[in-house]
């Protein structure tokens, strides 16, 4: 306790990474124009793909539902722009090179007003209606995992959830969109939290913000009412502070058991961007059609935070924000956990928090060949899950995947990348673990 008082709220292990946030942190959110075409994958999130409600050639209005949810673990899709459906076919998406998608041609003459929605008071709804309304909004976690929000917020009564934890850490380098949202959409954020509290029935909400964003902490505190059972907890800025389990530990002092979920310790975690979107959409009765992304990296000429229509291809963003270089690497999300895209047509989806552009220089600097493990122990000291990546790495090279899982807790690795980040021998540890896990999963299936 005394230690945590001295060091601020935090978790043990993890790594200190260069933040690179100065590039965009002070840039207010601006709206990016609409591209000519939007690509809307039917399965942008975990769960079942949506079922299209439109035909080729059909005209749609911005905000109109164009695909419906297929059951509980599924979300509807709303047209992000007024225009015409030009195709229903497999397209490259963040989840794979060919996934079913709706392609929309944007009407260049239209003013792109929201043409759909019905204002209402979500705080007056009963829980069931509210959860249904959240599903209808198509909202998924905007922090990266894109887990359907209505599923997350419907906690079964036997789980005894008492706290709603809002993740405002944004511990990934470069990304600042959540930071800007906390500053610019504070009212939406607080409204969203009130709605989520009603939906989950919890008594208290805690917003965890890293101590490198004092302005966001001040803005939120100013936006709260005296009687709101919501408080801000300032946590240490360290990677991966924004990982669910780490944040729960840092902000609430609770440890989620291995293989467990936050609800087991009475917590539901949501990201600030998701809550702000909830607070914006529900009172208006609108669907999710856009999101804020950070466009950053050494290779971008006009970095910043942009509000973009879902389905906007990376290519359009590159053109609009100015990419410099002949060879590029385009990463969706942050550098620690984000994945590089294989095609520039790949669209922004609900879970895309940023586009990071690197060019030759950084790519070369990072392409060091792997050497032998020198058993320096840095990875062990970095792993926030307290695993032994060194031993896991040796076992992976020997293909002893079962031992990895049975004796060294492979399945508790959440691929944060800390071990690879610190490894002086440049061993692609996380990549080993991803492969090992997928092989084990295949064997089990």
């Amino acid at each position, binding site marked *: 306790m005394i230690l945590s008082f001295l060091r601020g709220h935090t978790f043990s292990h993890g790594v200190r990474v260069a933040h690179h946030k100065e590039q965009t942190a002070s840039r207010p959110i601006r709206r990016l124009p609409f591209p000519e075409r939007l690509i809307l994958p039917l399965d942008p999130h975990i769960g079942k793909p949506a079922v299209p409600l439109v035909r080729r050639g059909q005209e749609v209005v911005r905000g109109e539902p164009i695909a419906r949810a297929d059951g509980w673990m599924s979300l509807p899709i709303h047209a992000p722009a007024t225009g015409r459906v030009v195709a229903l076919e497999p397209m490259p998406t963040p989840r794979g090179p060919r996934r079913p998608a709706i392609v929309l041609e944007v009407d260049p003459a239209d003013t792109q007003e929201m043409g759909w929605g019905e204002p209402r008071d979500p705080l007056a709804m009963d829980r069931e209606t509210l959860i249904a309304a959240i599903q209808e909004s198509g909202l998924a976690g905007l922090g990266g995992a894109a887990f359907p929000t209505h599923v997350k917020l419907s906690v079964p009564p036997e789980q005894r959830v008492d706290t709603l934890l809002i993740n405002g850490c944004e511990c990934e380098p470069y990304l600042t969109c959540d930071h800007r949202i906390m500053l610019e959409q504070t009212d939406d954020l607080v409204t969203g939290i009130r709605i989520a509290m009603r939906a989950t029935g919890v008594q208290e909400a805690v917003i965890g913000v890293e101590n490198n964003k004092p302005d966001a902490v001040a803005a939120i505190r100013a936006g709260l009412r005296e009687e709101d059972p919501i408080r801000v907890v300032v946590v240490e800025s360290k990677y991966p502070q924004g990982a669910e389990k780490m944040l729960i530990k840092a902000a609430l002092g609770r440890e989620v058991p291995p293989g467990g979920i936050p609800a087991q310790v009475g917590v539901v975690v949501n990201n600030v961007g998701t809550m702000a979107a909830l607070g914006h959409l529900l009172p208006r009765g609108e669907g999710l059609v856009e999101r804020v992304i950070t466009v950053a990296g050494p290779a971008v000429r006009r970095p910043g935070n942009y509000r973009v229509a879902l389905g906007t291809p990376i290519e359009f963003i590159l053109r609009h924000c100015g990419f410099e270089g002949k060879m590029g690497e385009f990463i969706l999300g942050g*550098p620690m956990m984000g994945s590089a895209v294989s095609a520039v047509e790949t669209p922004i989806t609900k879970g895309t928090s940023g586009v990071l552009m690197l060019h030759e220089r950084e790519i070369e600097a990072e392409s060091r060949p792997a050497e*032998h493990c020198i058993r320096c122990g840095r990875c062990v000291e970095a792993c926030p899950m307290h695993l032994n990546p060194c031993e896991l790495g040796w076992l992976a090279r020997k293909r002893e995947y079962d031992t990895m899982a049975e004796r060294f807790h492979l399945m508790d690795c959440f691929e944060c990348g800390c071990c690879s980040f610190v490894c002086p021998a440049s061993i692609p540890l996380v990549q080993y673990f991803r492969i090992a896990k997928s092989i084990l999963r295949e064997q089990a299936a």
Partner: protein
Amino acid sequence: MSGTRIELRTAPHAHAPVDVPLIMRHVIYALLPIVAWSVWLFGLGTLLLILTVTATALATERLLGGEGGERSIRDGSAVITGLLLALTLPPAFPLWMGVVAAVAAIGLGKMLFGGLGMNPLNPALVGRAFVQAAFPASITTWIPPLGAERFTSVAPSTLAPPFLRPEGLAEWIADQRVDAFTGATPLGLFKFDGVITPLRDLLAGTTAGSAGETPALLIVACGLYLAFRRFLDWRIPLAVMAGVVLAAGPLHLLDAERFPDPWFMLLSGGLMLGAWFMATDMVGSPVTPWGVLIYGLLIGLLTVVIRLFGGLSEGVMYAILLANAATPLIERLTQPRVFGAARRKE
């Protein structure tokens, strides 16, 4: 947009600015002051010994190591093995025996196990142990520090031809005009004559002993530099020293005549060099937090036991080699507690 090549790698797309060559380079930097002081204390012959041993280590690595050997040379780990080995040899050790030691260190200590990262035992100490067994007389033949002629002449043993008994060392030592040189190290003096060397000499290194093991203060300073730069694990030397104090302290309290002060145990012989630069060799030490402590304590305890109860006056080398060998077992017993797992069985 067309013409842009797309690069595809897996996360993380960032890396800490520390790689193996950087770590090794700093270890070499930290060893250089010790090397310099050693040459200042013992003279030209020692410089020749250090150069010969290091060059042999490099050559052996190159010849036996293939591609991995090339890497070890580039990243500097072969230089470190050579330097460390040289620092543990007597200052007037015959050069040809130094060559044997270096070949043994790299060949037996490293290559036999598959190169850097695969060697369970500290290669420098394997080389040292090999010559200790092969040349028991030469490995315990010492010369005085700060000899008058140390920069103008070389001890006859240094240049002794292979397989012949070195001659004339006694006369050479007499020429150095050093008062009361007994030919024994502080540990030997204590063990066989009950004499305690003054603290000042132990700190400065102005005693007989291996080329680079005597200046306790300098070794600690160099070790601290690496610890502060996080290129060595500070917990290991600390645990080793704690182990020494824990073992030697109570004994000293029991019988101060027979068992020396823990201070003396810490500052004499190869303890400091071993604790800061040998025990901390990453490859042979555990990676788990508790494992590191147990490993260090074990080295401290074993050293005291061998020194006080064994037939040898020095025990650091064997203590470290034994602890190296125990590392896999220690690691197995000290796997970290996974985040969120119950601390105790419920």
